């Protein structure tokens, strides 16, 4: 993955979140506090605004900057999880304009590990991990099978919407939605949905043209 691809991943994510902002807020209104779209958009707008000043940044540096920007503008649960998770990813990414796909997978692995550690959620708790954990699993398995990165990621992007939708059946155990108890069932988790958007953008940016 090149630094250009990395940047376009985040610009794509910014656009997707902006387009889905009302929907993400509505999902959060049902089982939380109606701000997930607003939160992510605020952070990603800042990321996009600062990007002009970056010039040609190495992967580790740009990941670090995105992490810090999200950490200091998003707030809430998603700000802490995305921000501190990306800080861990940055530590894996090289001080270079390019990295191989195994390194991308490792960076995502560190991200997921950090989110799980900080948030103490497991699969089925109705959080962003209900997209990120199966996605990471498929990524690692696909690469282990020798499938091309672009193909694996496109498949994940296709599945991610379903994984997100499947959270509707779950009762929330972590995050604000957990306070609703059984009333949280029947609604899609907003963080799972935005995570699916991120994977779609990864497929678009680094998955090679189709």
């Amino acid at each position, binding site marked *: 993955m090149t630094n250009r691809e990395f940047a376009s991943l985040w610009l794509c994510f910014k656009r997707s979140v902006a387009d889905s902002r009302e929907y993400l*807020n509505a999902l959060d209104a049902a089982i939380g506090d109606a701000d997930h779209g*607003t939160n992510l958009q605020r952070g990603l707008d800042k990321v996009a605004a600062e990007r002009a000043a970056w010039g040609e940044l190495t992967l580790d540096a740009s990941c670090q900057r995105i992490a810090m920007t999200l950490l200091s503008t998003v*707030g*809430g649960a998603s700000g802490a999880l995305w921000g501190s998770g990306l800080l861990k990813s940055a530590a894996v990414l090289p001080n270079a304009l390019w990295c191989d796909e195994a390194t991308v997978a490792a960076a995502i692995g560190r991200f997921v590990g950090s989110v799980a550690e*900080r948030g103490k959620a497991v699969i089925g708790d109705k959080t962003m991990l209900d997209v990120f954990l199966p996605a990471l699993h498929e990524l690692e398995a696909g690469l282990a099978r020798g499938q091309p990165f672009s193909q694996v990621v496109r498949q994940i992007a296709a599945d991610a919407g379903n994984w997100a939708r499947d959270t509707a059946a779950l009762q929330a155990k*972590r995050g604000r939605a957990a*306070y609703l108890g059984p009333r949280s069932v029947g609604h899609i988790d907003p963080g799972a949905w935005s995570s699916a958007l991120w994977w779609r953008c990864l497929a678009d940016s680094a998955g090679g043209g189709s």
Partner: protein
Amino acid sequence: MKKIINQVEAVVDEALTGLVRTFPQYLIRIPQSRVLARAYPKPEGRVGLVSGGGSGHEPAHGGYVGYGMLDAAVAGEVFTSPTPDQIVEGIKAADRGAGVLLVVKNYTGDIMNFDIARELAESAGITCAQVVVNDDVAVEDSLFTTGRRGIAGTIFVHKIAGALAEQGASLKEVQAVAEEVIAHVRSMGFALTSCTVPAAGQPTFALADDELEMGIGIHGEPGIARQPMLSARQLADALLKRIAADLGLHAGQHVAALINGLGASPLLELSILAGEVAHWLDQAGVVLDVMWTGEFMTSLEMAGASVTLLPLDDRRRALLLAACDTPALRQGLRHD
């Protein structure tokens, strides 16, 4: 959505400006931040208290910055916990060399952002301790979930820990008394209407004219059950039964009560609820030593209220009644 605002993006920033203009003798704003700190800091060598969280709960938390309560309050976006860098600014502002206690409400976002901030502050050499308020008995306290929410009971934590810090107690002692309050304080609330998050532009949920949400939090999130409207007496009974059961409240016990409006319910109605709470406690043989009625921890313009009980011993009572002087809470004036 009709609100007295300019742009939705500027709501928090402009509200902080207005608070500082209203209370210049109490509050300053740390430049380039969303931190309100004491205009006249406490003496060196005393423990600092920092609280904070999403905005939309005014007067919490900036309204409690002042003598006998907080040293700094950190404001996030509406209903969004503040970011770690802002919390670090708050910790720095509160630090008088004897360590800083962070009073956090139990929400995933708050916990994680305060955790990150604490790591940063400690690596910058400031000793921190943290307590997590989780007084909402509407939510089941389970090891397998995030546990109970922190709501209006937080004000009693600020007051009692703040009073002890003002007396010059150590960080350990201040943390211990805060934890003691947290171990005892219990709350529960209900909503008659939803509220509208400015950036979302429409009410978070809709309630019919004969419905209420029981067990509501302070972020416009739905409560634990929707049910037919109740009278003030029935509301007091529903909340107090659950709180009393959780506390194991018994006749002869002394308590403080907090009747907290969620934003749109006028003092006329809160006073009626206060009267019913007092009456219920009388009937139960519980001694009501202190009652505060008003808006302490709101949920934007939500109609509804919460009730908090804190069993008192002599020390907690004395600290609760100790003088304080903040924008939102002042007591202990001496006069003829």
